[in-house]
């Protein structure tokens, strides 16, 4: 068995991290994704929307959550990992988010172990930005 399977147990917390979502990060994400929607980049335009100001790409927040999974499960996350999330609240440039996760189940099927985890990221005021679940092979 790999170290990823032998060292895991239900209730284990995943090692989250904190990241400030600066406008520079949003701009870089626009370049990476090709998503130059002005709601992310143009304050003048964004001020006329329901949000009243620029917002970060939801996928940027989700990318942070998957960074946590890639770090926790480096040999299996990219080969058999699954996530399902909802975006609960917009993240505004200048806000900080904290990723989190916890293993809620470990199932065995056909001699293979799979961990199910609650995952997400919150703003520092406790507001959920991304909430969901991941399943990751453990070997």
């Amino acid at each position, binding site marked *: 068995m790999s170290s990823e399977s032998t060292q895991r147990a239900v209730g284990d917390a995943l*090692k989250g*991290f904190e*990241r400030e979502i600066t406008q*520079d*990060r*949003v701009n*870089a*994400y626009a*370049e*990476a*994704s*090709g*998503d130059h*929607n002005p*709601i992310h980049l143009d304050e003048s335009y964004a001020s006329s*929307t*329901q949000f009243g100001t620029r917002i970060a*790409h*939801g*996928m*940027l927040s*989700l*990318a*942070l959550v*998957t*960074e*946590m999974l*890639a*770090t926790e499960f*480096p040999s299996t996350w*990219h*080969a*058999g*990992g*699954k*996530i*399902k*999330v*909802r*975006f609960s609240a917009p993240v505004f440039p200048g806000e900080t988010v904290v990723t989190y996760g916890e293993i809620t189940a470990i199932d065995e099927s056909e001699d293979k172990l799979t961990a199910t985890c609650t995952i997400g990221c919150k703003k520092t005021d406790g507001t959920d930005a991304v909430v969901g679940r991941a399943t990751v092979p453990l070997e």
Partner: protein
Amino acid sequence: MVTPLISTATVGHEFGPYDVTIEAERASAYADAVGGGESPDYGDSLAPIMVVAAALTMLIEDLGLFSGGLQTVHAGQEVSWVRQINIGEQVEATGRLAANSIRRGNHFATVAVTYRDSSGTEVGTSSTTIIVSGEAS
């Protein structure tokens, strides 16, 4: 004003194929956007979510969601991945409108996407749910 596709597309409508090959420059921009001291070392490979994001941008454009007056909320996302993808590796994405309903004047749409490598082998799937408002429909 051109009617956005989101207004007329029916379930089963197909999108793409899109070339979502990610070159080094975009991978570097992704690292600038997301990276930090805790980030994993991807080496020559990519975070799968980046490939999904590239396809999503093209889908949004094809759906006409960059049209003036529309406001789009990314409500949900599913991703599953079969194997690692390398920087510069050819990946093609094809989408299918899996749901498209109107509630209280807002469109709720789900697009399912399949990702294949140059041999045609599936390397991942995703499903995106969006809510679109601001449209007379």
